[in-house]
């Protein structure tokens, strides 16, 4: 049986790990390599690392950091941040990363998605859609550049065109729910799910394993990603890297996984 994936998402800024709220207020939470080591021990399903500086500050991927992360990681890794060309994507895959995530560049230049798919295979191309509610539960818009630029396009529309271009996975990232830990925006996910058959991963809002269960109950086999949930503990948001045990994960998946 293919299992839903429970994925810690790490944000990198100035070579350190940070966690944001609503795409703002970055709080330093530790060192990326150290976090990977801890997640190895916890036998994490998969890890997502997003360099939130790379595009916003106009610099490219930090290959040295990526290589160190890939070498340390005993779980599959997807990397995003500053990828603008198929050549960069090839280099990143060559460093031992399983999947390359593109965001702003994929929206501005859809041809890039096909080029990257051609270069590294469809299965390794991820597009992250930063989604903002215009009318919560009803109308959503894809934004770029850490939420600063509006595209005027709905996530469903963008997702459908990405599938045609050969994307291997779409990450639906809720700007509104980022860091709030009040649950995923299921309505936004539903719109994207109905528009495409490619694997989806949802990011933004998970505050508990129950929220992850709710996502699985609604969508079956899906990627459930979270930042705050796996780096903070307790109401005062003390930094503590954590991840549910294999037993807890199996239980939630068993309880919540119906017919996909």
């Amino acid at each position, binding site marked *: *049986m293919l299992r839903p994936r429970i994925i810690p998402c790490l944000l990198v800024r100035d070579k350190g790990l940070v966690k944001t709220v609503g795409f703002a207020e970055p709080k330093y939470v530790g060192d990326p390599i150290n976090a990977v080591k801890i997640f190895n021990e916890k*036998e994490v399903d*998969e890890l997502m690392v997003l360099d939130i500086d790379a595009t916003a500050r106009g610099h490219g991927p930090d290959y040295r950091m990526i290589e160190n992360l890939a*070498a340390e990681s005993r*779980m599959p890794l997807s990397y995003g941040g500053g990828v603008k060309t198929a050549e960069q994507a090839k280099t990143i895959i*060559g460093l031992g990363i399983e999947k390359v995530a593109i965001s702003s560049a994929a929206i501005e230049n859809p041809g890039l998605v096909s080029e990257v798919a051609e270069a590294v295979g469809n299965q390794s191309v991820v597009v992250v859609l930063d989604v903002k509610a215009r009318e919560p539960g009803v109308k959503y818009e894809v934004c770029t550049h850490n939420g600063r630029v509006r595209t005027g396009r709905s996530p469903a529309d963008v997702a459908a065109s990405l599938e045609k271009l050969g994307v291997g996975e779409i990450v639906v990232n809720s700007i509104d729910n980022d860091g709030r830990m009040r649950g995923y925006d299921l309505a936004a996910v539903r719109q994207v799910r109905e528009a495409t058959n490619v694997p989806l991963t949802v990011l933004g809002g998970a505050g508990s394993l129950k929220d992850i269960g709710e996502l699985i109950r609604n969508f079956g086999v899906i990627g459930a990603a979270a930042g705050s949930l796996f780096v903070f503990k307790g109401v005062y948001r003390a930094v503590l890297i954590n991840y549910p045990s294999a037993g807890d994960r199996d239980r939630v998946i068993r309880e919540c996984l119906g017919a996909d």
Partner: protein
Amino acid sequence: MITIIDYGLGNVLAFANVYKRLNIATAVAKGPADLRAATKLILPGVGAFDHAMELLQRSGMRETLDEMVLSRSVPVLGVCVGMQILAARSEEGRLQGLGWVDGDVRKFDVASFRQRTHLPHMGWNDVKPVRSSALFAGLETDARFYFLHSYYFHCARREEVLAEADYGTTFSCAIEANRIYGVQFHPEKSHRYGVRLLKNFAEL
């Protein structure tokens, strides 16, 4: 010594790190001269079939590898696309594969899928050994591995299938023919299950 073939594709360092933790020495081969001391080979790979074959040809190691594997029966483990290129051809590409194992690489037929998510096959799936093999020692009843692919190896000979997995259909996810092994999943990224399999390969 276990030698990881570095032709510019796949996670060479991740394999090296798993073996380092097991206190098993490995070497990395970037050219034919580096293959001399190899007693076992790991052929990693991610990405597209043709790209993998192009890079392998360009590495200059192709002839030496053919000789080692086919004439001297040096055990080899192909991983992911490294498994797929063991075949002579793939629906994904136009180039010839290595042709070391009889079979061809096919795309999953999504028309037969009943689940909402189609391709790629992405994530942790159960792996069921279909015959006893030293590669799966200790993994007979509980084995799960990380998969990331849209194409699978279709074995021409049923008896060369070591293990199967289900994704819409049952497919061969591990094969063996005359000490040539292939696994579709990523043992180097599959925690203790993968560590066990790589240890088993080292102890063959």
